[in-house]
């Protein structure tokens, strides 16, 4: 199904906001925002039934431009606010949009435990390997040896994979895409929102202003072209050795499993407690 950008502009953007948006020219956040809107358009649900929550950072600006129920919350706490919304109104589709530092450093605990709890939420994590908005400090996903304003002579710590962390923490659905694979990304986001359980979509994005420039990776075009070369689909990655996969990005659905959902289990507990008290509340 072809969804023209014009339709997205007219249907989902808040026109009282200043456009063009605040992100740098060529920033992947805009591509991710378009993919999210295409996924929501395909879901065919009312705009009132969608809640977007975001934390602080460049990614935090995304819900402010979009005409849904939106929350722009404190740093790292997008998932906690989303959890609250979901517990109060389980019928809503709640999507938390976070950056890599937002989700795994400041909100790291919230992220792990939201995955463990398996609430029926969707988390979209934009991974650009750096804290872009605050001035280019290194984040938990900055690769070893990379340069940033706080690791001028090369980063001495190792990065970790957000998607693999989510799999280990117990999320129901984990997928990864890059901004080059925009069509795959919107299919994955659609699948994630439809999925009953905690769904994580990690999107590898480009920050050419803070990260690319300091590491000689070129501008937006060069960085996005590199994602195309590095990306390996999961089906192909299974047949490759660990040595071949070094420096590659595995894209596609990494985990899709059925697990008990927190809100439904809570409903059952309430019924059990009510029965134990002889039907009295």
């Amino acid at each position: 199904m072809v969804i023209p950008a014009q339709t997205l502009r007219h249907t989902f953007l808040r026109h009282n906001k200043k456009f063009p948006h605040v992100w740098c020219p060529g920033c992947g956040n805009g591509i991710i925002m378009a993919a999210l809107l295409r996924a929501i358009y395909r879901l065919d649900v009312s705009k009132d039934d969608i809640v977007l929550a975001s934390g602080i950072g460049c990614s935090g600006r995304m819900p402010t431009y979009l005409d849904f129920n939106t929350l722009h919350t404190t740093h790292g706490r997008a998932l906690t606010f989303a959890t609250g919304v979901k517990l109060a109104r389980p019928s809503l589709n709640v999507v938390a949009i976070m950056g890599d530092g937002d989700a795994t450093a400041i909100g790291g605990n919230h992220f792990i435990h939201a995955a463990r709890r398996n609430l029926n939420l969707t988390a979209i994590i934009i991974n650009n390997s750096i804290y872009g908005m605050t001035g280019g400090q290194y984040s938990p996903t900055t690769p070893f040896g990379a340069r940033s304003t706080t690791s001028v002579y090369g980063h001495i710590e190792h990065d970790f994979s957000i998607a693999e962390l989510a799999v280990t923490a117990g999320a129901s659905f984990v997928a990864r895409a890059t901004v080059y694979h925009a069509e795959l990304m919107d299919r994955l986001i659609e699948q994630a929102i439809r999925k009953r359980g905690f769904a994580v979509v990690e999107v590898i994005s480009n920050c050419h202003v803070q990260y690319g420039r300091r590491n000689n990776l070129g501008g937006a075009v060069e960085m996005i072209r590199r994602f195309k070369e590095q990306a390996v689909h999961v089906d192909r990655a299974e047949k490759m050795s660990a040595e071949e996969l070094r420096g590659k990005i595995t894209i596609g659905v990494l985990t899709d499993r059925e697990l008990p959902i927190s809100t439904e289990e809570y409903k059952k507990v309430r019924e059990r407690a009510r029965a134990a008290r002889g039907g009295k509340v």
Partner: protein
Amino acid sequence: MTTPQEKTTTTAADRKKKLYDVSFYHDWCKACGICMAFCPREIILADRAGKPEITDPDRCVGCRFCELHCPDFAITVSERTPRRRRNDV
């Protein structure tokens, strides 16, 4: 009788070539250059301000890569419809 395999081997002349129009919303464009760099036909070129323009829209194959990857919602690709007199108003 034609087998399904024969049916798929139509020549280019048999198919009517679909034409597309690409419109750029220059007010929202930041001239990042993604559309120009990734266009498979290399028909999107920079104008004097560095913003994209198409001089030969008939060569567009309608892959919509530029529309899908524009971070600023500034590109719309549409199938070309026949010109009508009311368009000239």
